[in-house]
């Protein structure tokens, strides 16, 4: 059984209780140059392991890229 969350505007199915760190790993996202907002709150890299996801959570995973 999985729960539904929103990641970067897309609906995703994840296991309940999964941590942000684990999700990033599953998604193949290196935790580098990232800013992560969990339900509207920024969380630091050191919080990724402790932050767990519940049904309906919203996650924004943002990275800096080339720009002018």
């Amino acid at each position, binding site marked *: 059984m999985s729960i539904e969350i929103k990641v970067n505007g897309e609906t995703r199915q994840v296991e309940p209780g999964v941590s942000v760190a684990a999700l990033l790993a599953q998604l193949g996202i290196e935790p580098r*140059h990232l800013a992560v907002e969990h339900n509207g709150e920024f969380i630091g890299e050191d919080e990724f392991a402790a932050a767990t996801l519940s049904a309906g959570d919203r996650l924004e995973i943002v990275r800096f890229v080339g720009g002018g």
Partner: protein
Amino acid sequence: MKPLIIADTPFRSRLFIGTGKFPSPQSMAAAVEASGSELVTVALRRVDLKSPEDPMLAALDFSRYRLLPNTSGARDAEEAVRLAKFARAATRTPWLKLEVTPDPYYLLPDPIETLKAAEELVKLGFIVLPYINADPVLAKRLEDVGCATVMPLAAPIGSNRGLKTRDLIEIIIEQATVPVVVDAGLGMPSHAAEAIELGADAVLVNTAIAIAEDPVAMARAFKLAVEAAELARDAGPGGESKLAQASSPLTGFLREE
């Protein structure tokens, strides 16, 4: 020229460089290196979940450059402030190029939203470098709310058209007490040199370098042009005249006068 200091940080180079639109990470990193720039803009974007690796910036040695994340994509103050927070979280710097560009065709900045966002961001501890139209009164107001520079445009972003706002930028320079960085539209080294000769404190260039066939050579070209203009200003240029001023002596001609 007096040394360029932004938010107590001295810069030796008056050329700032953007990292968008380069053909490869390697060319980008090499161009940044060749530009001699110490301040490098980046954008903030959602990670693409289908293709989570973005190698573009991987080649850049972040220890050597100060990052200047921008708020490109923001259409109003609220979006800009939110982007700014992501920027600070991701880059761990309070420096911010504030861009609020509601119009998708010319990407021109919104003066109202820019001032509103700037005011809030300064309060939040950001070091704000706002991208603006060549508007001297807006520039003063941004100074007044605590912006670290003003960055008036030469021409629309990426248009390579040169210093089309010369008369108004001249007024901004005359009145500013913070550094004036001419941003957007500088397409050739002569454009950058013209801006510095006019009295701008620095220029920010991205497209002209990134889309050149040889970005590294173009980066170096801009570097030299900016240095040339800085040297020229310090050299005390003579003024313009309407009549000719002979460069050879006006005596000793081989004829009886």
